[in-house]
């Protein structure tokens, strides 16, 4: 490995470790490291900063910002709060029904909006419900853990659900319909498998007293808290129409026409925001996810600098040179993606692995490789509480809610509490991802999947 390779990889790894260790200075660390990586790459003659900036996949960032704004618009319509409250009422305080219903709801919501927004929308009524129903510690932890995993799985199920899938759509790796048709069943099966294992084998509700009064009270109070909250159709209808129009455009307009998914997103979101101009202007001015955008921009620059050293080409060569059958190579690739994501989180893993994936697509169907990659990243995101940004957010929201469990102690939802759920989800999602990729690969000749 050359000195330039070592230095630039060192900067990337040091930035990732430091931002994890000092989350209060996360953005400063990452943007500084990107600047240093640009300076070093320029100074060592690896590439120029101008070239690094030109190579940033701006379309992905446009989609990230655009879909985030559309999610804010949907949130302003109060759609998800009302749905979560309805789910809670439908569950009538039955812990098993609630766990399954809320997880399924979270899966659906995070398929439409990014994971952080989905959590911010769905978690508050769930936390209120936990306070009302007098849940025990074990049940509360498993419920929150399953919701977090459902959030990751929903994000992987659709091309607009979360960053890794948006990246695949935005950089043209896969088209909208192709991703949706293959990733949705895989993610859905993993979700069903998780709920079945949790319900049959783990049985988190088994220690809870089946108290009819608790059920009555939680249902009655939830009814009171949401007694007159109505969905604002003046906001929801234009946002939903534009989302459907964007989906139609993504599935019907070929990328070869030059009308790329990011352009469709840009136009669609602005038209949706214009339909409620005052709200739209406020959202654009105040609710753009600057943190995620700057974080990813910096990562793209650092990974771009590393790419220019040729290290990804070397890894691709190693991967293609492995003396394994094609399916085994694919399984190794997906497993590596999952483990890397577990340690470094989805952004850096996806940015790096997308440089390696084309080596596999030369001999295997693109759809199998990229759907497998997305599922692998989803498995890794679910492994540790710290592997995805939604984990620490769920932890912070839970701690802020100050929930006291049935034993009278404050509920803690941290790394150790999530670990059993994370390990179970990791195994199930990784298994589903590998199985889906191998199935797509083995049937590609008959189905004509690219």
């Amino acid at each position: 490995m050359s000195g330039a390779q070592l230095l630039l990889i060192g900067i990337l790894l040091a930035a990732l470790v430091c931002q994890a260790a000092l989350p209060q200075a996360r953005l400063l660390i990452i943007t500084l490291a990107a600047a240093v990586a640009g300076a070093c790459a320029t100074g060592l003659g690896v590439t120029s900063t101008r070239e690094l900036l030109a190579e940033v996949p701006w379309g992905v960032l446009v989609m990230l910002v655009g879909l985030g704004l559309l999610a804010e618009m949907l949130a302003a319509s109060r759609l998800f709060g009302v749905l979560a409250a309805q789910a809670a009422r439908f569950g009538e305080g039955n812990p098993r029904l609630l766990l399954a219903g809320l997880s399924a709801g979270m899966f659906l919501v995070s398929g439409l909006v990014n994971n952080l927004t989905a959590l911010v929308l769905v978690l508050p009524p769930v936390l209120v419900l936990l306070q009302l129903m007098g849940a025990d510690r074990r049940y509360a932890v498993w419920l929150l853990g399953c919701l977090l995993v459902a959030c990751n799985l929903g994000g992987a199920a659709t091309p607009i659900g979360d960053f890794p899938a948006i990246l695949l759509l935005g950089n043209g790796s896969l088209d909208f319909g192709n991703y949706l048709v293959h990733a949705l069943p895989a993610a859905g099966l993993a979700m069903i498998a998780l709920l079945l294992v949790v319900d049959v084998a783990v049985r988190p509700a088994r220690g809870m007293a089946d108290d009819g009064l608790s059920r009555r009270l939680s249902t009655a109070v939830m009814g009171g808290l949401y007694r007159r909250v109505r969905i604002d159709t003046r906001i929801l209808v234009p946002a939903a129409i534009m989302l459907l129009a964007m989906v139609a455009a993504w599935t019907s307009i070929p990328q070869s026409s030059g009308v790329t998914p990011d352009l469709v997103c840009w136009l669609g979101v602005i038209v949706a925001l214009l339909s409620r101009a005052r709200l739209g202007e406020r959202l654009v001015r105040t609710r753009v996810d600057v943190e995620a955008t700057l974080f990813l921009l910096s990562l793209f620059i650092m990974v771009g600098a590393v790419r220019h050293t040729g290290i990804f080409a070397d890894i691709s060569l190693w991967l293609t040179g492995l003396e394994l059958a094609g399916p085994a190579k694919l399984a190794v690739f997906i497993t590596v993606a999952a483990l890397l994501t577990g340690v470094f989180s989805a952004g850096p893993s996806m940015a790096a692995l997308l440089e390696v994936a084309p080596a596999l697509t030369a001999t295997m169907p693109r759809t199998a490789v990229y759907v497998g990659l997305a599922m692998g990243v989803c498995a890794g995101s679910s492994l540790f509480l710290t592997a995805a940004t939604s984990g620490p957010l769920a932890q912070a929201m839970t701690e802020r809610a100050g929930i006291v469990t049935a034993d009278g102690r404050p509920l803690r939802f941290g790394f150790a509490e999530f670990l059993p759920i994370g390990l179970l989800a990791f195994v199930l999602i990784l298994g589903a991802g590998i199985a889906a990729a191998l199935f797509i690969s083995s049937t590609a000749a008959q189905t004509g999947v690219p």
Partner: protein
Amino acid sequence: MSSPTPPGSGGPSGPCDAAPPGLLQAFRTAAGELGHAGAAEIFVREIAEERGDAGVTAFRDVLGRDFPVADALAGRWLAGWRPGPPALAPLLRHLQGIHRLAVVGLEARHLDALVDARPDLEVALLAWNALPADWERIIANCGGRVQAVDLDGIFGWAGPHSAVLCLVYGDPAAGTVYAPPAWLRLNGPDMRPQFRSLIAWNILPVAFTVYPRWFHEVQVDDFTALEDA
């Protein structure tokens, strides 16, 4: 030394046997957004239907000291009283000619009834509560009719056609009632001239057996009118 078991958390014996786990926390959550009396009405009604008067008595034992409004309301329930629709007519008489109303204190059921009864009235709700509350959800329940204001913002609602409505509790016979702490911060010599009237709406006009923490004793004379809800 073991830590004491919190009320309502399901201890080994005593009144907690009749109370579900987490009752105290559940009540805090409900009272933060529905009001102390509104939350108590729901809890007492559901407990009475599920466990009868014995359950309501246990509810008083577990929560009474921490939530005296709930204690007083449960006591009334045991004496045969049942909550009905808020008495709006006397209040509405005081609101004749009033276009803008600033409300201090939160009782969701009463606020809903008032907003429905005067569709032309602009209403501001002082977003201040000693208990945790999701103010976005509280306001969303008002169908766009109520906006949240802070202590400074409330004076933007002053004017000759404006009034302040303060939700109070307790028997006024001795010349005092119990008002939310925010009232103490708001009420001063500069307040009365800025609003046409300062109305107290008494949500629970009964004597309390324990001092109602979460509220403060204020003079009935602080208000230009006092009406029972």
